[in-house]
């Protein structure tokens, strides 16, 4: 398998559940080593796409492959290459943490995996809970166990389906440190999340899904440049602004002026006109566009 083989390859994927179309022709390639984000509102088809990659759902038509292995024809190789952290907080109440990880290793044909199991438990702070029944774990610990289970077979491609939903700040941070390290070590990461700031900070490339279609797919940097809506919040020492600017500025309840602009030259000329009118700026805050703006914008436009 060469470096050119995509970690995840999806082409013209269709899936319909009774009356709803979950995927309407999705095509996507994720390169090896990428940290890729899949965003979209609820019901956009993110989980369906992931389920097809994992073999949990069967596509009506189209192809999906993990590292070149078709997820239906070569399911053994494709599943061996893939680690999935499911969205639902599931666990098997019959077993403790260590048993769960040993059994999961066994499903992948790994019998003597204790060295690696100890290592993942250590990284995910599960070591002191190794002998606890999974039922007695807190929600955060159950989430960690799910991550550990997805990693028992050292998969080169890791899929995380909203791994931080309902997870506290500490765990979220340590989880991302761990996942980022795996990415630096060469693992490909596919992430879906509702927290757009997470996606913005972590993902090098992002695809946005809406109603089963990809409506945007680009590097995070390029996506952020799609919306050049900057916003300046100004507190002035005057009650009104020069007439020419009245339509461009709006005033908050607390007396702050809001100015939306695309180019910094506009801000420059506003400031010059204010100075010319003898109005001085007491306070100014700039808001750069973030992924949320881009996301909202794209979802509205498409």
């Amino acid at each position, binding site marked *: 398998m060469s470096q050119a083989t995509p970690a995840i390859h999806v082409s013209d994927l269709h899936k319909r559940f009774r009356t709803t179309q979950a995927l309407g022709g999705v095509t996507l390639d994720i390169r090896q080593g990428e940290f890729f984000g899949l965003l979209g509102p609820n019901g956009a088809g993110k989980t369906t796409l992931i389920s097809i990659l994992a*073999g949990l759902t069967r596509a009506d038509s189209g192809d999906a492959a993990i590292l070149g292995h078709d997820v239906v024809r070569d399911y053994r190789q494709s*599943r061996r290459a893939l680690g999935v952290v499911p969205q639902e907080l*599931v*666990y*098997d*109440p*019959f077993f403790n943490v260590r048993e769960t990880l040993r059994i999961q290793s*066994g499903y992948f044909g790994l019998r003597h995996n204790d060295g690696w199991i100890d290592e993942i438990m250590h990284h995910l702070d599960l070591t002191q809970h190794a002998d606890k029944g999974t039922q007695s774990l807190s929600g955060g610990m159950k989430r960690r166990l799910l991550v550990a*289970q997805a990693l028992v077979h050292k998969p080169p491609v890791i899929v995380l389906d909203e791994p931080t939903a309902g997870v506290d700040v500490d765990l979220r941070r340590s989880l991302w440190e761990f996942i980022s390290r795996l990415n630096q070590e060469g693992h490909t990461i596919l992430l879906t999340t509702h927290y757009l700031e997470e996606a913005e900070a972590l993902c090098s490339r992002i695809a946005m899904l809406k109603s089963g279609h990809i409506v945007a797919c680009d590097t995070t940097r390029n996506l952020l440049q799609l919306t050049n809506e900057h916003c300046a919040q100004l507190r002035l020492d005057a009650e009104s602004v020069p007439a020419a600017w009245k339509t461009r500025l709006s005033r908050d309840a607390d007396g702050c002026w809001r100015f939306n602009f695309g180019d910094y030259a506009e801000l420059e000329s506003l400031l010059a006109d204010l100075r010319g009118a003898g109005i001085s700026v007491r306070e100014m805050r700039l808001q750069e566009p973030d992924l949320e703006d881009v996301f909202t914008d794209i979802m509205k436009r498409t």
Partner: protein
Amino acid sequence: MSGFTALFYKELLRFWKVVVQTVVAPVVTALLYLLIFSHVLEAHVEVYPGVSYTSFLVPGLVMMSMLQNAFSNSSSSLIQSKMQGNIVFVLLPPLSYLEFFLAYLGAAVIRGLVVGLGVWAVTLWFAPWQMPHPGWLLAYALLACAIMGAVGIVAGIWAEKYDQLAAFQNFLILPLTFLSGVFYSIHSLPAFWQSISHANPVFYLIDGFRYAFVGQSDTDPWLGLLVAGACFVAISALTLALLKSGYKLRH
């Protein structure tokens, strides 16, 4: 087949962790049946000449317990995993549908045999030890557990809620096992019900199993073996076809 070993082990460990519920309880239930029925009927009923009612009843009870527990093992494991959602743990790895089938089936057979052995062990105090045909015993025990283990897999996959599985158990499995000659010989039934009983595969399992214990039966044990074998092949084929298609497991 290495994934099979892990899934088989997990299924065994699962019922062994709740052994009081999965093994001790059915043994106690069977013991209660034995105490009550043999107390009431011992003096009044002689099904086969020279065979006491208790000796007649024991193999039926052992077989009934095996059937119900083999069914219960695979069906309850699957429905629990589906309801809890942890079924994904076995759907995500590279397990083939054949490995999946054999692991759930194997564990159901073991659970059935363990319960059967337990029931038999406690009944040894009540009926004299006899075993003229140990080969038939083994053949019928294995086939019975395998059939019900496979039926349990089908039921566990089909059921979407606990009450659907309970309906399957209460309206199908329980009548089939109760109305198949555990407590009586079908020769004591009116002709119509006798012929109905002959259409019930469980009847052959109990009848043939009893033959191993007391050396007498209502039908030829070879015929029973044929019926049971055919049932096992048919239900296995159905189960494998369902698993292969991903019915209710892979949407």
